[in-house]
């Protein structure tokens, strides 16, 4: 809105033109080492944590990445991603209960449904930018929440959807441990898709729109349509997470559509590092683990702890975990460069 704000270095949300580019510029062996390490952790996860927590981490990782796709790479802060996460959770649950679909198909149904409702919401929301975009998406998500609450014949109202089956070709997935490994490929596909989008020509245009919408428009890019496409893709990814979440818990309640879910998704991205994609995965893992640990140790004021962490992260740690790590590596390299000279 005011140019003074934008000229402040690093003031805009986003990687300040560094995060992603820096990772891409890292030597190939670093990137492969990170990839292998990430996959190893993903495969090991349910052995080190409760499998149910590990499944939650997968779901929240998808949600975080979907939010970062908009916030970090398109410059749009959606504060309403619970709408897509929750819609997909309900749809996937209903598809599994009523139609008895195998769980990956149910999750896909949910994610497609999320993308469909993202179309009108996104169409209206991309008419505004900045803080207004956040308020508009938040309001529409609340609308979906009210609809789900009132439409009890479909959503079960306050009771939610109970006993959601998760079925896959006669395999026994009732154990969370095995379900994790059944869900992992879907989550990895979603994360890969996000990475692919960000590193495609389409993704470069999105970053261009984030950094200078007026110039992107002047170059002939239909800015609104690009934003809308990104919004729908992001909703689909959030829907993948939400659908898996429904399958993981075998239960869907109104919580999945609540505004706190939307807000937490954004904060997870800030915590991990805006515009770093993988930072959001780390942020999600940390938050899920922390909330589980707090509720396990019988601490009831979870919001007090998460809220404090959010406030501190926004005040003191805006680069996030991934952003800080990249920064440290870069500084170390610069120093080494100097001593070698």
């Amino acid at each position: 809105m005011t140019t003074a704000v934008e000229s402040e270095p690093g003031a805009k949300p986003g990687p300040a033109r560094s995060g992603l580019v820096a990772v891409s510029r890292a030597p190939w062996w670093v990137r492969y080492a990170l990839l292998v390490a990430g996959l190893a952790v993903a495969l090991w996860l349910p052995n080190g944590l409760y499998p149910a927590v590990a499944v939650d981490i997968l779901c929240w990782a998808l949600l975080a990445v979907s939010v970062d796709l908009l916030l970090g790479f398109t410059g749009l802060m959606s504060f309403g991603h619970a709408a897509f996460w929750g819609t997909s959770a309900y749809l996937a649950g209903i598809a599994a209960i009523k139609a008895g679909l195998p769980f990956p198909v149910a999750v896909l149904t949910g994610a497609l449904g999320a993308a469909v409702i993202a179309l009108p919401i996104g169409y209206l929301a991309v008419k505004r930018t900045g803080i207004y975009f956040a308020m508009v998406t938040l309001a529409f998500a609340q609308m979906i929440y009210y609809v789900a609450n009132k439409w009890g014949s479909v959503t079960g109202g306050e009771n939610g959807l109970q006993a959601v089956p998760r079925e896959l070709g006669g395999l026994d997935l009732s154990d969370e441990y095995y379900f994790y490994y059944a869900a992992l490929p879907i989550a990895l596909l979603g994360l890969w898709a996000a990475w692919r989008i960000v590193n495609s020509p389409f993704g470069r245009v999105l970053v261009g729109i984030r950094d200078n919408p007026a110039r992107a428009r002047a170059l002939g890019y239909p800015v609104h349509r690009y934003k809308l496409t990104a919004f729908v893709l992001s909703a689909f990814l959030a829907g993948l997470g939400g659908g898996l979440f429904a399958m993981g818990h075998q239960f869907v309640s109104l919580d999945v559509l609540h505004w706190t879910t939307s807000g937490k998704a954004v904060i997870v991205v800030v915590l991990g590092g805006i515009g770093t994609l993988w930072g959001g995965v780390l942020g999600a893992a940390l938050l899920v683990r922390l909330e589980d640990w707090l509720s396990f140790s019988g601490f009831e004021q979870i919001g007090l702890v998460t809220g404090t962490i959010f406030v501190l992260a926004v005040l003191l740690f805006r680069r996030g975990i991934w952003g800080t790590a990249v920064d440290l590596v870069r500084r170390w390299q610069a120093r080494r460069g100097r001593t070698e000279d």
Partner: protein
Amino acid sequence: MTGFLQHTFDGLVNGAFYALLALGLAVIFGMLRVVNFAHGAFYMLGAMGAYVLLAEFGVPFWWALVIMPVVLGVLGMALERAFVHRLARLDPLYNFLLTFGLVLILQDLVKSRYGVQSIPYATPESLGGSVDLGIFDFPTYRVFVLGFAVAICVAVWWALTHSRVGMVVRAATERPELTRAFGINVGRWVTPVFGFGIALAGLAGVLAAPMRAVNPLMGADLIIVVFAVVVIGGLGSIFGSVAAGFGIGLIQAWGVVYLADWPILSQTLVFIVMAAVLLWRPAGLFGREEAPA
């Protein structure tokens, strides 16, 4: 006909709460470019505070109506100095997130002390009963709330147009750089204006205590509706925010009655209106088009 008038009156009373909250949001936004997510939480603190004052110190409603806005206004100023100020030069989204974190903290603090059950708060005796306004009887307290809220809105309007502070606030709202260039110390007014906006939210909370369920979550859902209200009115426009507040109150009240067969529709009217406004006038009914971003 009487039925219609009664719903209209109830709609205006509900609209008065939207208007007071939207007014505070708009004043803060105008001066700081901050959208205060915690506005609903301060409304809740106003109501809870009125309850605590009465239950634990025997302080009556009328004193609460003075004490809580002052206390919360001071708390708001402290928050502005301690946190909001630090993020002022960054993208406004950071302050939105900061205040979101504050909501979680404030809600849980109150919850841990008073639980989530709704607490009854008696209507002050002098405002009990009902008044006959010719057509039918209105509950006195609601008439008072409506009159009081309108008076506050008019007073703020007058202060903005007739006082020196108001001129600075309006000038800083419209052209922050130019106002500074004229040698006006805009920064001096930032903290008091933030506190004032919070005080308005606290005032609305005290007013709500005798007629609404008082609980730690009472502000959370309300603030999202108020966000829709300010998108409809245009957040940059103080008049627009207040007008949209009353307007949405009316539309909701009529919707509950005349769309009773479609509860899903009547519950979501405000968001449908917001969608229509975004289609027709994206900047809001009274807002100006943002500089192309």
